[in-house]
């Protein structure tokens, strides 16, 4: 009886409100650089917010305000110094990223969080189309289906078809960024983290990317991003979340 009450109380404390996809509470991050006599740099100080389904929140603030750091803490790529990050996951309920085992974070990335970083990490010998398709293949989608979906995205992002079979390591910056976007979007994750997705794109390509982001938002994806390009930001964001240098 006692145990049951305890379980119920604990679950209730952890549960997110129905449409909340990300809950960040009191998040701080500092880096200790040991090579420089343990210099401590504080990037985030006590950040709290919630991100809901269908929202697109744009992180704003000067360079060094911790915008990328915040995205990386949510993605489990950086360790939080204190505070918590909780994510709604379709299969597992609420998952607390801070303090999670690597396997839990891998599962969360597979099923729930898409992340578009500024730079593409190419894999030797893997062509652009296969690289874009791989998050879907990992979800168990048949390879042929995943490749077809990848082709649709590559076409939409105006990547010339003759490049699809080539490993993107030698592509231009803008091409690599569009490959990265296609790879981040293909699995239709309920949460999308975008770190300057249009930084090295021309106006026409930025507009295509904005359109893709808007489509996701309208389908209920919870999106958080850094958009230096104001035009893109105004088109896609539902609200701004300013960060000050910590």
């Amino acid at each position, binding site marked *: 009886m006692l145990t049951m009450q305890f379980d119920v109380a604990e679950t209730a404390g952890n549960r997110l409100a129905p449409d909340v996809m990300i809950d960040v509470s009191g998040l701080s991050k500092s*880096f*200790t*650089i*040991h*090579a420089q006599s343990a210099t401590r740099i504080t990037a985030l100080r006590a950040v709290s917010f919630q991100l809901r389904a269908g929202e697109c929140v744009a992180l704003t603030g000067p360079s060094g305000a911790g915008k990328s750091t915040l995205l*990386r803490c949510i993605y*489990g*790529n*950086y*360790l939080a110094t204190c505070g918590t990050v909780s994510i709604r996951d379709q299969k597992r309920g609420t998952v607390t990223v801070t303090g999670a085992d*690597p*396997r839990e*974070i*891998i599962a969360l990335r597979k099923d729930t969080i898409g992340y578009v970083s500024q730079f593409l990490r190419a*894999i*030797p*010998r*893997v062509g652009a189309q296969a690289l874009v398709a791989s998050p879907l293949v*990992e979800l168990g989608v048949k390879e042929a289906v995943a490749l077809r979906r990848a082709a649709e995205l590559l076409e939409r992002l105006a990547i010339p078809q003759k490049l699809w079979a080539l490993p993107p390591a030698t592509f231009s910056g803008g091409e690599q960024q569009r490959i990265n976007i296609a790879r981040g979007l293909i699995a239709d994750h309920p949460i999308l983290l975008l770190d300057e997705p249009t930084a090295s794109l021309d106006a026409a390509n930025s507009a295509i990317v904005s359109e893709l982001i808007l489509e996701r938002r309208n389908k209920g994806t919870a999106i958080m991003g850094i958009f230096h390009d104001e035009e893109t930001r105004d088109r896609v964001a539902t609200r701004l979340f300013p960060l000050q240098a910590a």
Partner: protein
Amino acid sequence: MTALLSGRGLTRMFDGKNGCAQIDIDLHPGEVTCIVGESGSGKTTLLNLLSLQLRPDAGSLYYRTDDGARIDLGLASEIDRRRLMRTEWGFVRQNPRDGLLRDVSAGANISERLMANGARHYGALRDTAIDWMRKVELDHGRVDDLPRDFSGGMQQRLQIARNLVTGPRLLFMDEPTAGLDVSVQARLLDLLRTLTSQLGIAILIVTHDIGVARLLAHRLLVMRRGRIIETGLTDQVLDDPQQPYTQMLVSSVLPV
């Protein structure tokens, strides 16, 4: 826990200094774990303890069998330990010469473990060998060639085929890409990446190459002076290293 192999408090010292001490480690199915660290950090000692090639001075090693039972490998008979190493485990050595039989053909090298487990049908063994040569991208027309007639990178792929043929649940690899040309390395890494995601087996790789770890590993263990000093999700350890030594290790990698 669902760990396939668990070490607790594993310790083995040589001359009272080199070796490894008080190691706790779990290897999970479908997960690639990389141990990185400099020469003399104890990573090879740990690999040898986990793969039953060394006995620990202290500590325990537990293995979860097919039927879910947990056995203490320190108490297992030599026969049981050998059977495990021959059937459910594989070991890919740094130098393919140490992991291949030099006087028999490529095909016989691949089917040796099957024969040791009682397979006798020559035609079936040969078919399996040819099938595995294809999987590791070797020309199956060369099934009767001796290992020394293959290049270093091809020998390494032959060694991998030889280990995977029994469908192991756990694979140990000691610096599998060391000493290979970069283009050959890329091909081997591509193969390993594909095989590991398809097979769902537990893999432990010892490497000093951070790039290999970043590409293949889910989980990273950093060793120094016989201890695990840092562990976590691979990209987290590499992008946000906490320990002074790990920071030094990561910042020493040449950018491409």
